């Protein structure tokens, strides 16, 4: 079981690195999906199959589709990729990368510290999740509803546009 965890974790790390190093945003998105899937596998390994399913449905499914639609609407092409490449000079990322490496070293040290291996995993079935959500944590569920409402009202207000802005595609066709 340990091995499966390490493979999943390695894939998660690798794909996430690929997400941030790709020049083409669509490629990056594909890696992001892989990364989310591997995290779902890890959830599954640790006895939370429901969370794994949610991770796939919500993140890899719904949110990814939204992002892809958004990217398509922005109509990014090779031009943007070239621009990105120009921005990404070694001088730009070397120091932040070094700092991140230090942070990573810290993290590895922290993880190495825990001597007790993970044993006695208790699986959490969906029923348990539902029970605690609508039992002691009912207040949290209601607060999340308010949180979403704040997001919707804010987005509705900020998203309203008086000026009509045409998509680049239509603009070039019209002229």
């Amino acid at each position, binding site marked *: 079981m340990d091995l499966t965890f390490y493979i999943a974790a390695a894939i998660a790390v690798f794909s996430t690195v690929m997400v941030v190093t790709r020049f083409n945003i669509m490629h990056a998105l594909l890696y992001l999906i892989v990364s989310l899937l591997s995290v779902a596998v890890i959830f599954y390994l640790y006895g939370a199959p429901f969370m794994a399913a949610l991770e796939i449905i919500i993140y890899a499914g719904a949110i990814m589709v939204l992002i892809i639609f958004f990217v398509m609407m922005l109509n990014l092409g090779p031009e943007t990729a070239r621009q990105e490449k120009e921005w990404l000079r070694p001088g730009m990322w070397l120091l932040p990368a070094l700092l991140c490496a230090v942070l990573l070293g810290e993290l590895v040290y922290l993880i190495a510290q825990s001597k007790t291996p993970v044993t006695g995993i208790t699986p959490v079935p969906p029923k348990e999740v539902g029970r605690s959500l609508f039992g002691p944590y009912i207040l*949290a569920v209601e607060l999340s509803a308010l949180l979403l409402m704040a997001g919707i*009202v804010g987005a509705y207000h900020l998203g309203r546009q008086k000026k009509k802005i045409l998509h680049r595609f239509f603009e070039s066709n019209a002229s």
Partner: protein
Amino acid sequence: MTFNDLLSLGPLLNIAGASVLAMLLVAIWRNHRLVYYFTVLAYLLALMSVVPVARLLPHEIPPLVVIDLFALFNSGAIVGSGLIIVLLSYNYFEEREERKEEYYLLLLLATAGALVLVISRHFMSLFLGLEMLSISLYGLIAYLRARERSDEAGIKYLILAALSSAFLLFGMALVYGFTGHMDFPGIGAYLRETETLPVSVIAGFGLMLIGIGFKLGVVPFHMWAPDIYEGAPLPVTAFVATISKGGVLVLLIRFYQDVNGKEYTMLWWIMAIIAVISMFAGNWLALTQQNIKRLLAYSSIAHLGYLLVGFLSGAQSGLEAIAFYLVAYFVTSIGAFGVLIVMSSSVQDAETVEDYRGLFWRYPWVALVFTVMLLSLAGIPLTAGFIGKFYIVMAGVDGERWFLLIMLVINSVIGLYYYIRIIAMMFRTSETPLRTYIKPALPLAGNITLGLLVVVLIGLGVYPTRMMQLIQEMMTLIK
């Protein structure tokens, strides 16, 4: 949930319910005045619903929230400040071009978020409250889309707040991963049993401190403050400066108490350094500032530094001092922003120091109010600000934190300079009288509200005993 549970959540339920009802109201009939009266009514009801909770205290709804006198007191302060901000908002938004109704919805939701913060004692309610607050603020800060700088402020706050939330979440995950508890008392109990703090828990606390520090706007997480103060609509700025920061500070105090923060000297030193550099950076940056909104932003950074000094004194009187100082700071800040609000015209906000040249000769009443507010910010006797600072110094003496006290005194003197500069500007006669008056007529509601704030401010400054008794009573209960 029992009846008592619902009753003890009264202020929160009122505000949250009102936000939903207000949304429906806006959907049915969009009218600025109507939604304004509705919001005022909601705040008044929430303020009244604080009273019956008092006999239930302390009431716990495990595992997420606890309502004790400390939480109730701060709930009252938050709802009261919210009410005053709403009263000041009507004219400001009436003169502006955007749709006005959503502002009240978002303000109600943000207030509800702050109310959750002050009663929460669990990571989950902490995070939900904090996110409710910040997500509403994204919308509020960028509210006047057509104005210059509002988009900039909104985007800046969005990115930085999201980043700080990520830090906070990661910190909470680390703490939870090693202690196995998400409720504050549980974490405290775990930490009492271990003699050395695990490194990961320290790292978790550090990361959480970044998230909290951002919300408080203390140095070195203060970079957003001036830009957001400048770009946001003035009532929203007042909200960010008072309710948002106050709610988070209350949460920090509760967390620190529950996990026995006093015992960890490293945590103390980090916060002491933050406090000292916040005071210095805030005051130094304000010295030559010509824009009053930015000046108040820097001044609020410094004030958070003063508050942290009271917090770090470690004495019981420190917490009392903070509670008092917080109320004084709420009243004073809202008053100062209130003056800016009533002085702003529909075209531009009255934000440069130059706008206030000779104000006394044009609008003596407003100039007097502003003078009182600035004197209170500076901590001059007979104002609430002085009493607040006095209690903080007393707490410092009790805790024998001489270094922090010396820093506080030095900074109070530096701070005096730029407050007095504005006051002097208001009393100067202008050589060029034809600089167009920024505002022809002042709104009545705004003036009445300002008058009320002045009365409270002077009242607290001259006769603080009653307030202090209440606070002392409350602090003995949370021990």
